[in-house]
């Protein structure tokens, strides 16, 4: 038995609903319409899904062209099983607020950690500051 090499294997997945996790952490859900040899993707009827805890919200985004290198993960969504998810869908405003709260909490925790490390005479560069240099 043989299979398609490289991105050619993605061709079988065209016109199916896919979830794409990007390198910046965003989650996109949409119909895969076109690919190329670099696994650049064209997503159609895309929504950006934000998960916070057990809640999630969808922001409609339309057509997305994703540069292949930014894809962390890509998988087909089973349309039949999609409905019976234990997660609860909430409005965009609500999920954005939840996200904001979550991020704030995370930052606080990070700050505390950094403070504690500083007191012990240690310091680590944060990942995002590393990126800049």
């Amino acid at each position, binding site marked *: *038995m*043989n*299979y*398609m*090499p*490289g*991105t*050619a294997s993605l*061709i079988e997945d*065209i*016109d199916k609903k896919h979830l794409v996790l990007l390198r910046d952490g965003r989650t996109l859900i949409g*119909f895969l*319409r*076109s*690919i*190329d*040899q670099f696994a650049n993707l*064209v997503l*159609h009827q895309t929504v950006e899904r934000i998960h916070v805890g057990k809640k999630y919200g969808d922001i409609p985004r339309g057509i997305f062209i994703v540069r292949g290198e930014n894809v962390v993960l890509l998988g087909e969504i089973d349309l039949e099983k999609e409905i019976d998810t234990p997660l609860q869908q909430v409005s965009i405003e609500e999920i954005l607020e939840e996200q904001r709260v979550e991020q704030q909490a995370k930052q606080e925790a990070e700050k505390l950690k950094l403070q504690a490390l500083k007191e012990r005479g240690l310091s680590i560069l944060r990942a995002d500051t590393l990126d800049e240099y």
Partner: protein
Amino acid sequence: MTADLADTEWCPLLQETDECKADGHSEDEEATTLLQEMVEEDEEIDLYNEETFRLDMESGGEEDPADLFVFCGEFSQFEKGASKDLSKMNGEPPKPPEVQQAAGQPAPQRLPVTKSQPAPALSKVPVAPRTTGRIEMRGERRRELSKKMEFQDPAVLKSIKGKPTLESLDSAVVDSGISSTWDEMDLEAEDTAAMKVIDRTLEQRIPPTTLDFLSSPLTHQYPEVSAPKHAPQGHLSPRAFSPRYMQQVPACPMMPRSPLCPVRPYSSQTRFGQPSRYLSPSSFRPTSSNISTPTRPLTPKVLQMRFGPMSPSPGPAPFFSPPANPLQRFRFPGHVTQLHPQHRRILSQRQQRTQSSMRKQREPRSDPYANIMSAKEKAWVIRLQMIQLQSENPHLDDYYYQAYYQKLEEKLTEDELLGDRAKKEPPKLMTPYVQKAEIYEPVVHIEGSLGQVAVSTCYSPRRAIDAVHVHCQEEDLKDIGHRRLGVLNLIEKMFMTLLEVEELQKKMAVLPEEERVRFHDTLTCKVNQLFHLLKEGFQESCHELDAEFLPVLLVSKGKRLIARLLSFLPLEAALEILVAVLKHLPLLMAQDAECSYEALPVLYTPLCTVIGHLSFTQLVQVLKEFTAPLPDSTDTRLSLACHNKFAISFLYALLSHGERLLSADTPIEPGIEEFDIWTDTVFSVAKQLSHSSLVEPLLLPSNLLSLFCRYLDKQAVVQLEGTIERPGSLPVQ
């Protein structure tokens, strides 16, 4: 009649263009050269792309007629004008009515269009309203097409009517739009008819091609193209035209070959430089657009757009046929342009599968946006990926996959042996070997020069040896240091060859049978060459006679070279080396004793393999050397051997092999003399061993004691056993 009408329409234009000839030539020239360059470049790219990703009729078949249709439609209008000339000159019948139909009558489909609807009249038909988005357009088109209203496609209409808008010139828009929905169209009849006409006309128009890119689908498809009958060659070459001239050409009814000339649709002249009456659609369009559109693929702009998956398929090939100028530089199809047969099979299987599923899905689908990526584009991506699998040396280019798959296979065979599960074939990628046509030469190429050594040293640091070697004079060579450098240099060279040999060996394991033979010849040749170099290459650096192999053996890298080479050598050659090692054993042992690091043991394993293949006679000869007295001392090699790990292991291996030969079932018939030597050797070895303190051997053969049992009395054997198995202790007296 059509032709007459066209003719009368063209007449004023002819005058106009004649007037135009007079002015504005100089500013065109710069643009022309630039244009020519662009055209050339793009043609090359296009051709290369075509060759690399050409979609054969089977692969892209379902879309191909789409392109064809667009151009047929456009072409046919030109035909109306040109057919008159044709029929005049060649006595050919006027073109069939189907072509006229394809020429873009929007309303009545499949009805033969009467000649009372001349093409030029079309230009006065208002342009269909444009839709804004591509997808919307396509969706709309799909709906229309499914109702069998093929020719109402706005893009098609536009291109047929030939208003020179950007959209109509963008072949990508036209192509992709139509090709993606082609499977739902049903135009075979029109197409074939149109093709016939085009074919026939082209036979007279396409100049001969001397280009022999034989595998190109272009030439395969139209091998019958013949010399032009009415036109000088220069006129047919794209570079022979100034933009001005190109504009004029279509206007002249006496130049039927114009479809092959690249016409610049957007020359600044037509756009802005001319009086508006020349630009007015009614006078300009019927000629320029209809005639220029078939030639569109040759204009640089369109060529650029055609790069990639949209590249022309063999369907409309006549319009992309090789340019007239045979001097143009073409990239010939390299090894990468052909697909492996297995890959081709997979591709065609896929094609068939999708085609059959297409047929099933003819009814309206729930997803109107499905199949935005056409089968042709899909095939293109698959092809590209498959081509990437081809490699000259998969173990280098694709090491991880090769290693992974090898492991996977090993694991599976293990599982099978254990009976854990039924035989299961894991999915495998075909990674075919290809032979590269030309060898890529990296820039690092220095003949003993010091100038670029800094660059080269990062590739092969030992090249410094070359540099020194070449620069020193002949008398300097006598200097011992330089002699050593010479040896190192030679060893270095031989190592390169050895690496090649090993590479060949590795490749041979995965090659098909017929290629293996060829590889085997090369390998044998290289090994022989190496052996000769080993034997004779060091004459200069070593003046003593009888010192074959010694210079190499004295260098630890040389030892490693010999160790690696031994497995490739035929037995006689290997035996020569073995004897040489034995002959120089005292010296080598002394050298080893001086260094803290023992280099001789690297030779042990390969030499053991050689010993394993010796016949009894050969073995006895070797052993004789062992016991023979040394020229300038009372010691024999035997007595010295007891104090060297390698030497004693070597001796044991020899004896063990002798014992194996004698105790084996296969009869060996040693001569009396040979047998005597053998017995003597065994006795003297036993005597020597029992009287010396032994070092621990690298390996103690198990049949050694049984050998001594055969020749010695029990007490002696017990004593010997003690010394052999407890090395380091003093023999019990």
